[in-house]
């Protein structure tokens, strides 16, 4: 597999090395893309990993969307390039307007850190290759702002266009319609709150993230 993945690092990102390690373990190559450098270094795919980009000040992802790398990520995404936002990366993608909706504080105001079962709702996207609609997988979550909200019109569009990628089988955070991950209309931009990179080894409690990352590496 010759896929080269760029993993964006903002000040405050903290999941870039877990993500790189998971990608390399699964046969891909990965390198860090510094947020202040607009160059994507000719990578084949981009991950915006988890963490607290720019300290999450103002709102999660609000400042990150203005980092120089994001203009290049947006152009790459609009050109069909595979872009995966995990956790804080999902928040950044919504703030950047690359995905609809927003992520607000969890119902109950608790930081959640647990293994969560999610169900594939659509496989017509960069994470779906090799999976089937209805597949249930266990992937950990680790967030305070994972409660997906969306205006009704945009939500209806997500439902009808097959843009809901994952739903929680037991909603942990109050997310609208149990949504755990969504994609854009073309399926090349996916945002999800659960962390597939933390579910790539039996030692970590689950290997269910492997199929998602393998699909991403061949997208």
């Amino acid at each position, binding site marked *: 597999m010759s896929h080269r993945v760029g993993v964006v690092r903002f000040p405050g990102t903290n999941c870039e090395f877990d993500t790189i390690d998971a990608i390399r373990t699964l046969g891909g190559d990965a390198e860090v893309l510094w947020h202040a450098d607009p160059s994507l270094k000719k990578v084949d795919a981009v991950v915006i990993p988890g963490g607290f980009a720019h300290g999450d000040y*103002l*709102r999660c992802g*609000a400042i990150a969307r*203005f980092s120089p790398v994001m203009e290049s990520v947006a152009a790459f995404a609009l050109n069909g390039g595979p872009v995966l936002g995990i956790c804080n990366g999902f928040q950044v993608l*919504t*703030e950047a307007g690359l995905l*609809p*909706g*927003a992520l*607000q*504080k*969890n*119902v*109950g*105001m608790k930081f959640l850190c647990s293994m969560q079962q999610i169900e594939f709702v659509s496989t017509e996207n960069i994470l779906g290759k090799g999976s089937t609609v209805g597949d249930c997988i266990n992937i950990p979550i680790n967030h305070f702002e994972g*409660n997906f*909200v*969306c*205006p009704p019109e945009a939500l209806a569009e997500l439902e009808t266009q097959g843009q809901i990628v994952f739903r929680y089988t037991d909603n942990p955070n*109050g997310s609208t319609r149990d949504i755990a991950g969504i994609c854009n209309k073309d399926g090349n931009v996916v945002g999800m709150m659960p962390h597939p990179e933390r579910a790539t080894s039996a030692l970590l409690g689950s290997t269910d993230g492997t199929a998602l990352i393998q699909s991403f590496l061949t997208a």
Partner: protein
Amino acid sequence: MHFEVRIEVSPRDGIANPEGSTIERALPALGFEMTGNVRVGKVIRLQVEADSVDAAQSLVEDMCNRFLTNPVIEDALVEVLET
């Protein structure tokens, strides 16, 4: 001209507000059973140079739309005070 600005950021109607709901559930424990519909937002204060109140208002509204608020889930009420 120099203006002081107060921006009240509030959750949009129809958007659930977990902070407000949590506070609402806590208030009866202190004997305040009579409260309801608690909504939590934030206030941003800033100073701005502009030619008029209208110009200041329009500048700050632009800031709100592009950065200070997320229009998907938040509304902003901008108050410009001349100083």
